């Protein structure tokens, strides 16, 4: 009897070690290879010291110098189960060459959310992007801050300062927590640090990268705060001229906590957000694995599209990661060019970033190959 108990105990310990190592591995950042145009890397905790030493303290990559051009902030990985968001940010930071203005890139905006996965979603721990010689693995994370960092969830999440009530789990949703508060919860502290970054660095344009399921109404879209509306509508028209369908969505004035709403209201920046369609987040999806994340092809969505259940065109070609990243990159190009046209004295210029067509032609791996970097 005792022997059996001991055997079970050893079994449990072995399983705990095995799974524990897996969970630990998901907490290790994959290396990134910033372009030579990098001027410095600062930690987000520079803007709120309470984050120092926590799992949410993350790198802010700065390219270019303060030269009178615009300061632009790209947020990737606000929700870490939206891979096109952070892969686009990785691609930008590994390739960009600034010619005028400053580019700040936070590729893992909620780094805590990258360190675990949402229970019940069956998301793979990693997915591979093929390189010219081999593959490069990337982690898949969660929409929410790791409960190890903020736990337990309240019954109802009351947003500060508006008092808006959302479900308890949204207390760990960074994009419901802006502008954040000096005495807020952990996720609110991340939001507060980003808001401080925008203020202290005088960021002119914020581009927050996201994905959503194909049945979600705000999809293939640029969402813009009122101040950024002219810039965003110019960008949408330019994207359409290039054959990329984007919708323009106004930032809802009475839905609080979102980056475009709160950064727009609490700072002087032009706040925008982009959404692409990701079936691995969708509620109608079938088998969920690494292949689904990269190929974006799900037979259930092909059927759903046939009966008009999706908000984006969807067929047997799926919506692969390179298309989703390509859309974010295309939007990035057009938002910055529109901002520069509208504010010629604060114009920004850069090279090194592929166009949508180049990305589709050459594939993601060409631009994410670590061997290409010194």
């Amino acid at each position: 009897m005792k022997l059996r108990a001991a055997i079970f105990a050893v079994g449990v310990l072995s399983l705990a070690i095995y799974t524990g190592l897996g969970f630990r591995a998901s907490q290790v950042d994959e290396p990134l290879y910033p372009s030579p145009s990098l001027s410095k890397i600062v930690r987000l905790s520079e803007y709120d010291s309470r984050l120092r030493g926590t799992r949410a303290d993350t790198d802010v990559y700065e390219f270019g110098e303060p030269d009178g051009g615009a300061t632009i902030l790209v947020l990737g990985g606000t929700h870490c189960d939206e891979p096109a968001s952070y892969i686009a940010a990785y691609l930008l930071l590994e390739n960009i060459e600034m010619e005028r203005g400053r580019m700040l890139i936070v590729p893992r905006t909620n780094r805590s959310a990258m360190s675990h996965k949402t229970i019940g979603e069956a998301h793979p721990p990693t997915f591979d992007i093929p390189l010219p010689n081999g593959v490069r693995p990337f982690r898949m994370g969660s929409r929410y801050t790791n409960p190890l960092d903020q736990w337990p969830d309240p019954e109802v999440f009351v947003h500060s300062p508006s008092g808006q009530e959302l479900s308890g789990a949204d207390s760990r949703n960074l994009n419901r927590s802006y502008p954040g508060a000096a005495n807020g919860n952990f996720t609110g502290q991340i939001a507060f640090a980003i808001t401080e970054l925008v203020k202290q660095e005088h960021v002119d344009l914020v581009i927050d990268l996201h994905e959503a399921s194909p049945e979600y109404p705000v999809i293939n879209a640029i969402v813009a705060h009122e101040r950024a509306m002219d810039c965003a509508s110019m960008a949408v028209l330019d994207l359409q001229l290039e054959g990329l369908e984007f919708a323009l969505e106004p930032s809802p004035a009475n839905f609080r906590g979102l980056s475009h709403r709160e950064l727009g209201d609490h700072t002087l920046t032009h706040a925008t957000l982009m959404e692409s369609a990701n079936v691995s987040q969708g509620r109608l999806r079938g088998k969920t694995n690494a292949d689904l994340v990269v190929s974006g092809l799900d037979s259930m969505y092909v059927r759903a599209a046939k009966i008009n259940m999706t908000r984006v065109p969807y067929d047997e070609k799926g919506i692969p990661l390179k298309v989703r990243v390509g859309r974010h990159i295309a939007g990035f190009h057009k938002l910055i060019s529109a901002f520069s046209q509208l504010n010629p004295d604060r114009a920004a210029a850069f090279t090194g970033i592929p166009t949508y067509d180049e990305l589709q032609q050459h594939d993601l791996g060409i631009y994410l190959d670590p061997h290409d970097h010194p």
Partner: protein
Amino acid sequence: MLFWTYWLLAALLLALIARELWRASEWRMQLAAALVLLPLLLRVLLFK
């Protein structure tokens, strides 16, 4: 504060169930206890 209260509860539960695993006579009970131990152990070790 709330975090550590919950952590203490998890640790207490872990200890109680480990004791149960040790004391139970029936193998089914022992197996059930072992299975419940796993997530609590990962939680207490702050792995998950």
